Structure formats: structure tokens, C-alpha cells
């Protein structure tokens, strides 16, 4: 099996970056194998990039279910374990349990959402592959994942679009 390479072209203008993305598309590279790296968010689709759907919205629901389950276990469990009537209220005081249930539901939703964000962002991934620190200074990086046999073609497309530098990892 041919080794997989990561090739980065660095550009000093967004237009050049968009041209590089167009070039890669025209050259037949599969969507999802090339990507653009920027130091600031641009409007979605500004570089003609492909962004697969995320499933982030499932995470809060899962977290909320876990949270409310824990809350009911905690409140009902403690109140039944030591059934002391306080202030004339019932042992299982639903209106009071509601508050703790609400808080733990929201906590579960928030924690699960954050886990989801990190997961869906494909993080943590400390191996950056082909990367240049100038990207966070306003340069645009276009990175291609390709096999050895298409490596030169990828470099050629990136160079044609006006890359200042090309890196391989």
C-alpha cells in the first residue's frame, strides 16, 4: 500500500487559496482529501471547501438523559434513605426535586456538548501533519492528503496557484 502524504501549500491571499482549492477539485482529488487552513473563520464555503455534516446535536440529548437520571437517583435516593419530614413537605417532594433535576440535566447537556464539540472537531490530534505557523498570522494553507503516486501532481497544482512555500509531511 502506498504511503499517505500530507502536502501543504501556503498562500498570502484568500483568492490564491481559493484558486488552489479550485485547482485540486479540477485535478480530480476527492472531496474530503483536501482542506483549507485559516487563522480566522471565513464564511462557510468561501474557499469552495467540503464540510461534512456534523452530529453535534445528538450529544446534548444524551447528556441531558444522563443528567436527569442521576438527579432522580440522587434526590429520590437521599429522601427515601432518610425519610424525615421537613417543613410539612412530602418525603418525595417533586417540586423541589425538579430544581436539582433541572440543574443536573443542563449540566449533563453542557458537558456532553463540549465532549461532542471536541470529538466532532476531530480533536485531540497533537500530530498536526503538514502545517505552518504563519497560518495564524493571516496566511492561507491548503493541505492535501494523497498517496505517493499523486504527490507530484498535488505539488504542481499548489504551485500553479501561487504557493509561497510547499511543505510535505
Amino acid at each position, binding site marked *: 500500500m502506498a504511503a499517505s502524504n500530507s502536502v501543504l501549500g501556503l498562500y498570502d491571499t484568500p483568492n490564491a487559496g481559493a484558486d488552489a482549492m479550485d485547482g485540486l477539485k479540477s485535478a480530480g482529488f476527492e472531496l474530503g482529501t483536501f482542506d483549507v487552513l485559516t*487563522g480566522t*473563520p471565513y464564511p462557510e464555503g468561501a474557499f469552495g471547501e467540503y464540510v461534512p455534516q456534523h452530529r453535534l446535536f445528538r450529544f446534548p440529548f444524551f447528556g441531558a438523559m444522563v443528567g436527569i437520571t442521576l438527579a432522580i437517583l*440522587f434526590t429520590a435516593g437521599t429522601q427515601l434513605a432518610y425519610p424525615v419530614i421537613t417543613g410539612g413537605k412530602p418525603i418525595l417532594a417533586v417540586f*423541589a426535586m425538579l430544581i436539582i433535576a433541572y440543574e443536573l440535566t443542563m449540566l449533563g447537556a453542557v458537558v456532553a456538548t463540549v465532549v461532542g464539540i471536541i470529538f466532532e472537531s476531530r480533536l485531540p490530534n497533537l500530530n498536526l501533519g503538514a502545517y505552518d505557523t504563519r497560518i495564524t498570522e493571516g496566511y492561507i494553507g491548503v493541505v492535501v492528503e494523497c498517496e505517493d503516486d499523486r504527490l507530484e501532481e498535488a505539488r504542481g497544482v499548489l504551485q500553479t496557484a501561487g504557493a509561497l512555500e510547499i511543505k510535505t509531511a
Partner: protein
Amino acid sequence: MQQRRILDEFTVNHELLRGNLATPKWWLPTVLGLLVVVLFGFTLMGIMFNRGLGVTGLSRPVYWGLFITTFVFWVGISHAGIMISAILRLTQAEWRRPVTRAAELLTVFSLLTALFFPLIHAGRPWRIFYWITPYDFARGIFPNARSPLVWDPFAIGTYLTGSTLFLYVALLPDLGVLRDRTTGWKRAFYTVASLGWRGNPRQWRLQTVAGILLSALMLPIFVSVHSIVSWDFAVTPAVEGWHSTVFAPYFVVGAVHSGVSAVVTMMALMRWLWGWDNYIRPEHFDALARLLIVVACAWLALTFAELIFGVYSLEAPERALREMQMFEWPWNLLFIIFFLTGFAIPVPLWFFKRVRNNIAMMFWTSILVNIGMWLERFLIIVPGLSRKQPFVFTWDSYQVSPLEWGLLLWSFAWVMMLMLLFSKFFPLIPLFETKESQVFTTDVQIGRVTMPAVIRELD
């Protein structure tokens, strides 16, 4: 109103990372000075644990005094973060950008500070473990889920966790910038902290979605937290002036009032200390002042409702309390100061554009507001308690002890020190939000007029 500067990413990085990549001369002496006060405060806590709560002014019937006042005050300040970050994010207000991180940070640190007070107030805080965790019922101490005092840790814990995670998620892109701008152990630290952030469209898109989703989740939490804190007082009919249904929104709106004012104070300090004139501009203070006017008017309506219903019942004890609060020494003086500083001085001033755009004026009026809001909590808690039982063997009213004043001072020093420590390692103004604003704002020509414009993505 629009005072946009056109800045490239290199300039933004250089100016906003000034405090992280190098240390300003004033930073270390300030942190050391604050550390002295903080250590003094911890010493006072130690004295209190050693000698008992008798070293404070607390006594029957005023068992809640300055500590609980300050607890409620700091929980109130914490409401700034979500108000500004979440609501302004959801409404796509451009002017929120330089403010969001500092506001979220204020939320986290003020919540941490607030948490100290009920803990030290217990006298023997290590026993609280038995009271909020279902452990070892044989001792006779168990979490009473029916009590608002147990609702509090859940609410504040949820808010603190959520705010911290929100802060961290929004920090990821900037951690990537810091990774790229540093070397050595710092680079290793930021590499791990940034989790490998690269800045591809998937990650940016999830940042946007995260901001909206987390904002939508945090907003109900933000409303619930101070409502639950208010129910510590409102649910009990035993104390005059407390058993009022309006307390929940009253406390929440008051919290927003004090919190946003604290953000104004902080923004002025940030501009002056770090020289961020390009990023924190008079237009931001103008927008915050307008928001404060709306919030302050809502607060006034709720205060009016709380006071008028205090006498609505025509019950003698409640009327006597209100007369004491407003007409008897020393409460009358505190009441006047509370009203003047909380509303009557700052709000009319904010109606003038010259004042709204004057950063020094905004700084001082915001401080006045927080003095007033601290006094508001004091006036809610202490007078009602001091009239709780008609026959008491102690005829003194509550006297705040020097130790309690010392711990109040400690709380301010603690928050400021934590903010300064954070500022050394992480940028206080979000870099990516500032850069995003450069991309998403432009000018458009209509006739002879050039007007600022924003780019909105189509669904």
C-alpha cells in the same frame, strides 16, 4: 457610532498577545501586592476556623451578614459573562467581540470566589461534605433535597462547570495561535492545551455552532442560578421582607445590572493597562451603557414591586421593617446611598452620549453601581433578620467585624489576582473573534454615503 479599525492578523496577534509573550512592567508588582492581600485573607480564614464564628459580628438573630451578602454579590457579578457572551452572540451583536472572554472569565472567577463564602460561613467547612453528598447517613447528616441550601451547590456548580467549559472551548483557536508564537516549554503547554487545533473549516464551523449551542444551553442556567440563590431567602415566611415571589427575577436582573457594570469597569482597566485602544473603543462603552439603561430600568421596576408589596399586605411587622429600612438610622443612610449609587446617579448620566463615550465616566459610574448593588443585598438580608424575633436577649444590632471587612477586601483582591494571572498565559481579548470581525465587516457605498456593513451567511 461605528469606529472600525482595519487591522491585519499579524497586527492583531502582536497587539493582543502583548501581555502573554512579554510581561508588562506593572504586572508583577500588582500581582505581588494583590497576593499579599490574598494571603492576609487566607490567614483571616484560618483564624476564623481556629476560633469559631464568634470572631465575626454574627449572632442571634442575624446569622447571615456580610458573608452571605458578599456571596450573593459575587454570584451576581458572575451573571455578566453569560449575559454578554451568550445573549449578544445569539443576537449577532458585533460589538460583543472584545468583551466576551473577559466577561466569561469574570464569571468563572467570581463564582469561584462566591463559593468560598458559604463554605467558610459553615465554621467547619470540611463537614459540608456530608451535607451535599449521600455518604454515611448514620451520622445523621444527609443531603436534604428539599432545601434551597442544597439547590445552591447544584446550581452554582452547574454554572461554574458550564462557564469554564464554555471559556475553554472558545479559547481553543487562540491556544493554537499561542502554540505557533511560542517556543520551549510554553509551546509544549499550548500544544497540549490547544488539542491540536489547525483551523480547518470543520473546526471553525463547530466553533460557531458551539458558540450558539452552548449559549442557548447556558442562558437557562444563568437565569436559574440566581433565582435559586434568591430562593434561599424568598421561600421562608419566617423573616419579614423575604417571603416575596418577585425575588427570583429581581435578583437575576440585579445580577445583570451589577455584572454588566463590572464588565464596564474591567474593560476600562483593560484598555488603560494594556493599551488596547484599537479594540476597546468608546462605541463599546456606548453600547454597554445603553444596555445598562434598559437593565437598570427593569431593576427599578422590580425594586418598586418588591417595596410596594412589602407594605401591600398591611401587616404590622412587615410595615415596621420597611419603616426601619427607609427611615431609621443607620439603615436610612444606607438606603439612600444604595439608591443613589445603584440608580439615581449613574442612570441619568448614561442618557447623555458624552458620558456614554467617556471611558473615565463609565468606569466611575460602573463602580458606583456595584457599591449600590452590594448595599442592596445587605439591606435585603440584615434588616429582616434583625427583626426576626421580637424578644431576643441581645439588644445590639449586627456589627460587621474587622475580620469580615478583611474578607470582603480579600474577595476583590482574589478575583483581580486570578484575572491578572490568567492574562499572563491567555489572551483576554479573543483573537479569533477580533479577526473574524475583520473578515465579516466591511464598508458599503449607498449613494454618497459609505456605511459599515456586516456579512451574514445564508442558510
